[in-house]
């Protein structure tokens, strides 16, 4: 059994006192309100919480897409909070893979090309075909997004995210747009990648059933972390009840 106070593995993310305030005119929205969080090398974390509780905001900040209003985000000891645009771009390019709810594939590129889009700018990528094979799409490489189903498109997105062998894989509701069977296929792909590449993986989801596949589960409420639990027993994605 592992404990919060005595980490067994080195931290890859160390987040302390993170706040993010959005100002639109008069209105002020505290999307994050003092978040402390830790992710360890190679672990799979699930982030849960009601809509608007700040999950995506956090994921965007640790992924280097956005900046916090205050607080600190350390990636392997390096501070991201004050990093320049250029540094964040390099950080994303070299370390982070993203999967989004709506796939965000480039419609004018084929599955293979969408993956190659990322491997072209990565330092140690795997061949696009291997990444597609990992998600079981080796036979659909030359199809355009419009010729793929939602689940297939999401798997291409995962292949695209993992092809550069990222240290972290951040997934914002990767199964949100999918039915249960397809969702399971996608989760299996993620779990397999996590195991085979050792990428630290964070998955945002609204499906509480998914929590059981993770090492660690954070629950969000009103911009804060309400709880953090560790799973002693993980289940396989195929056992997730939808």
């Amino acid at each position, binding site marked *: 059994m592992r404990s919060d106070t005595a980490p067994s593995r080195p931290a890859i993310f160390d987040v302390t006192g993170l706040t993010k305030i959005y100002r639109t005119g008069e209105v002020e929205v505290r999307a994050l309100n003092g978040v402390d969080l830790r992710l360890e090398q190679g672990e799979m974390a699930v982030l849960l919480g009601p809509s608007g509780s700040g999950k995506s905001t956090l994921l*965007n900040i640790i*992924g280097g*897409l*956005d900046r916090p209003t205050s607080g600190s985000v350390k990636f392997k000891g390096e501070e991201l909070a004050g990093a320049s*645009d*250029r540094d964040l*771009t*390099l*950080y*994303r*390019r*070299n370390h*982070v*893979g*993203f999967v*989004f709810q*709506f796939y*965000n594939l*480039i419609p*004018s*590129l084929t599955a293979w*090309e*969408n993956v*190659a*889009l*990322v491997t*072209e*700018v*990565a330092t140690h990528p795997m061949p696009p075909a291997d990444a597609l094979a990992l998600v079981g799409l080796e036979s659909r490489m030359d199809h355009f997004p419009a010729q793929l189903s939602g689940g297939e498109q999401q798997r291409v997105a995962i292949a*695209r995210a993992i092809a*550069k062998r990222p240290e972290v894989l951040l997934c914002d509701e990767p199964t949100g747009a999918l039915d249960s069977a397809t969702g399971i296929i996608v989760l299996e792909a993620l779990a397999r990648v996590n195991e085979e590449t050792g990428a630290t993986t964070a998955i945002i989801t609204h499906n509480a059933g998914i929590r059981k596949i993770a090492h660690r589960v954070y629950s969000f409420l009103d911009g804060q972390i309400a709880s953090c639990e560790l799973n002693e027993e993980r289940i396989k994605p195929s056992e997730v009840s939808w």
Partner: protein
Amino acid sequence: MKAFSMLDRKLIRDLARLWAQSLAVALVMACGVMTLILALGAARALDDTRAAFYDRTRFGDVFASATRAPESLKSQIAAIEGVSAVATRIVNPVIIDITGMAEPATGMLISIPDHGDPAVNRLYLRSGRLPEPGRDNEATVIEAFAEAHGFRPGDRFDVLINGRKRSLSISGIVLSPEYVYAIGPGDMVPDQKRFGVIHMHRSVLEGAYDMNGAFNDVSLTLSRNADQKDVIAWLDSILEPHGGTGAYGRKDHMSDAFLDSELTQLRAMTQVIPPIFLFIAAFLVNMILSRLIALEREQIGLLKAVGYTNATIAWHYAKLTLAISLVGITIGAIAGTRLGHGMASLYGEFYSFPFLVFSQEPDLYVISTLVTFAAALIGAANAIRGAVRLQPAVAMRPPAPTRYRNLFNASAGGFRLPFSQLTVMALRHLVRWPLRTALTTLGTALPVALLITSLFAFDSVEHMIDTIWFQADRQDATLTFAMDSSEDAIREVSRLPGVMAAEPFRAAAATLRNGHRSRNIQIIASNPETDVSRVLDRDFAAVTLPPAGILLSERLAGHLGLVTGDQVDIELNDGQGRRVLVPLVGVTNSYVGLNAHMSREALDRLSGQGGLISGARVIVDESRLDDLYAEVKQTPAIASVALQGISRQRFRAVIEENIGISITIYVTLAVIITFGVIYNSARIQLSERARELASLRVFGFTSGEVSSVLLTELGVMVLLAQPLGWLIGHSFSVLVARGFETDLFRIPLIINPSTYAVSSLIVLGGALVSALIVRRRIDRLDLIRVLKTRD
């Protein structure tokens, strides 16, 4: 597969998908490049060729004529500071009689030294040779005249030299720097058949004109840092006692002035036309790219999320812009080069150069390419900046629904506007993007303006023809005597066969001054009331010439800074040096040349010599024209004859051919712009609103009704564009008319209502076709697909 990066593949596919829109933009760019290459290339060809030809033939810098000056003056003239070479000559107008041609041609008979080349204004031999010493009947003729008559060396023709008919043998065919643009007396465009320039040995002309040891014409070249003004002043003072009519520089040399005015027009064209196209192209690029980037918002966010730098993304869209430009530049360069050759050969018809090559120097293409790239990138800059500014986290979220203003609200305040909800949709959309609406309207107005600016030439030329030949110079011919004669001569003119009416005139060379401004000009004096040839005031009413005072044409009065009521300081160039102040009694309208008119009575008083006339204007019975021609060819007293009737026909033919060519070009250009603007804005609206329109179809609106939303918007912009286009077109026409105005001629600004109408109709037609193409896309809208995709 390594050849193209993934982003480049996206680029190629984007281009392939947007090919129609891209092509429309590329064509607009092509027009800009084409006109730029054409105008710059033609201007350069003309400029370089002229410089080389002048240099080679030692074209004069200063010219003067006198009645009879002793050859001994030559050394005095050569001694003027700044003069590097002097050529004295005998130059006289002659009547040429060509077998088989009824009407007499006129010519300039110019002396060349018996031995060696002239020091100034050398001839460029095209074929044959210069006359040989001792062969007194040998002459050279200029090429244009020779070609018009099919003359070869060895052929013969007759001229009336000082009253004696002489048969000349052509020894050679030449080009002369003085007659690159060879235009006969009374003509407005060159008529190669009816105007010839003949060169013969000085000794022969000295004998024929009784000018032994004398000259009546002198040309000078100047050293590099000579002061032309000083030289002219000195030359005038030397020639004045010998009937000098006032020296002038190249600027006032007829042939060179025409070349200059052509160059002025080409430069004006370079400055106006290509910028219009490049402006529209920049606007279209902006429109297309903004839309593309809006559509690809999430893709851009993704690219940033996976670590593509802003620079890479900006470069990606810049490359798209450059690719479109490259297509435009290629098409434009090919078209410009081909048209350039056409233009050069058109010039070849009018200007006699030994060679005229359309300039294809690489820098021309480099300049056009750079300018076009720059325009396109300026157009793209704003859109690309938007892509760079996109925050990746925001970009991944779908954009908030556009906020519209609650305008045209049918239910607001109980006041119902008579619009359907569909029309309200269209109107709100227009108001939502006021800048884009304004630019699209402007983009549609510009082709209307361009058409008006080119079509108005027809109206103006018709008006000119009417004014010049049907209101003012209504004579069929103008006969000029070899020397001023007594008034009785008019009776003899009246007795010539076929002459139904004859009016005398007297011409006197004079210098008009006002303070430090001065002009050498021919004062034309006529009877107070004339019917054949009339002087028109600025309202085109015939003027009765007062017994005293002078009338000046508008431009001449302007040059001298005079208004009606001022005193004009006049000195007749009759060798007496008397200067008299004469009141300016009126300003006249004139489209050709600079004119000064007096009554004969007033000129007689001014000169102190009454009862002299220089020639007559005649109305001729058309059926007896040939008899008159035959008689004129036999009459020694008549030195030259201008045939206004033939000039008019020739003018109309030449001008209409030229205008016809340019109008074909301009209509094509206007249609391309219209298509580029309307088609693109329709396509972009369709893309922006596909969901909205598809939803309407789902709600049960017919495709006609749905199209009406889009077409209403287009229609509003196209209609607004018309008055705007008329306004801009009118302003452009004012600029063009002003830009083309020279001392040689002036184009009146006449724009008939039908010109506005035709311009609008052409653009409306182009807009309609573009709209119909887009309409077909609306009809074929794939509802399911549109609704499934997120936008």
